[in-house]
């Protein structure tokens, strides 16, 4: 890694991700962070091993399920040979595909590749562009591209906003975020993210509600908030 990732999902998020109980959209942001973050890869592995341990060690009462019928049905099916199994595993592994925006090419984390291959069309507004990903029921999931030297107008959040930096760097009132960093903003937070003069930025954005723009003329963006949502 060129630099250390500083902003990680907290333990409860990692635990629920390993357990499979997060909402799919939030899980996607966490999964993409894990793809980029060796620290969270290790933690996830440990959490998963612990959950599996709990599963394997829990005492169970004898019950009335007809297990022998199920066992019989399963073993009536042919197992895959090692080769067939390996081929299947290869097929499900995605080739690394890149996406292009503003004549820039980006390779996405594994978790996003399949969905990004089906992204919606890029919508441009000033130096900012967004494209929806075909994911999400409760949340709105999109790629957000910010040209260099560009500011996203100050806004508050009507819901939860998760931003995973995929490439480049953004800065806001609270800090500096680089590839792999995961920012989580709640309704109380107000901020003005911007890029640096010499570097653009690609993010994954997961929003549970539209943004609300705060200042002067930028409030005019509020009717356009479907752009950000």
């Amino acid at each position, binding site marked *: 890694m060129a630099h250390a990732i500083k902003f990680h999902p907290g*333990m409860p998020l990692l635990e629920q991700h390993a357990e499979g109980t997060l909402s799919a959209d939030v899980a996607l942001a966490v999964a993409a962070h894990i793809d980029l973050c060796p620290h969270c890869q290790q933690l996830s592995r440990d959490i998963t*091993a*612990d959950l599996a341990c709990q599963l394997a060690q829990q005492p169970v009462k004898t019950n009335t399920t007809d297990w022998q019928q199920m066992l019989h049905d399963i073993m009536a099916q042919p197992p895959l040979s090692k080769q067939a199994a390996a081929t299947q595993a290869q097929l499900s592994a995605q080739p690394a595909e890149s996406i292009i925006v503003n004549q820039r090419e980006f390779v996405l984390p594994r978790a996003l590749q399949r969905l990004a291959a089906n992204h919606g069309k890029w919508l441009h507004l000033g130096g900012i562009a967004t494209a929806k990903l075909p994911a999400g029921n409760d949340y709105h999931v999109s790629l957000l591209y910010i040209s260099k030297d560009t500011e996203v107008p100050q806004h508050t959040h009507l819901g939860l906003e998760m931003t995973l930096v995929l490439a480049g760097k953004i800065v806001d009132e609270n800090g500096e975020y680089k590839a792999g960093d995961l920012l989580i903003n709640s309704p109380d937070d107000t901020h003005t993210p911007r890029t640096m003069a010499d570097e653009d930025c690609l993010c994954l954005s997961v929003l549970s509600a539209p943004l609300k723009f705060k200042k002067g003329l930028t409030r005019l963006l509020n009717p356009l908030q479907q752009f950000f949502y």
Partner: protein
Amino acid sequence: TRQEITNNNWEEALTFVALQRDRSAYAELFNYFAPRLKAFGMKMFGNEQQALEMVQDTMLNVWKKAALFDASRGCASTWIFTIARNVRFDMLRKKQSRKDDVSADDLWLNGEYPEQEADTDASQWDTQLLMDKLAPHFTSLPPAQREVMEKVYLQEKSHQEVSDELAIPLGTVKSRIRLALDRLREALDGARN
């Protein structure tokens, strides 16, 4: 012929299934895991029919894909747990019938990330620091983690000793320590802000 599977050595059982389509090894695995998976499914779905569907799908995958199990990457129970989790996740998504939507394959890597250089962070947490600043947070650790942490940091036992004493795998001792350290670090960060 195969010897009895001893000490819940499910890795061995899976290897027999993979290499020889060993039906009795599979039956032993099935008899052990199916009821436990059902309990897990009941907790997740709250519905017996779906829980059983998940068990059947999971154990069918174990039967068919045993050849993909790689003991060097982790225990059999971890492999089976991840299959069950993914089956359950995709069952829930399918009910909502969204074709392009997030799938278990997107969320969880089917295999290992490349090995990274050792994380020295965790080992820098010395006993003194733990005693002074983190002792109050000890009580809020899950009991299993607290037990291991007390033995290692307060009674200064080696990981191996703790593993022997509690009759749990060495890997579990290490992972509980890492999880506990992370929790404590979070508690400390929270206190600072």
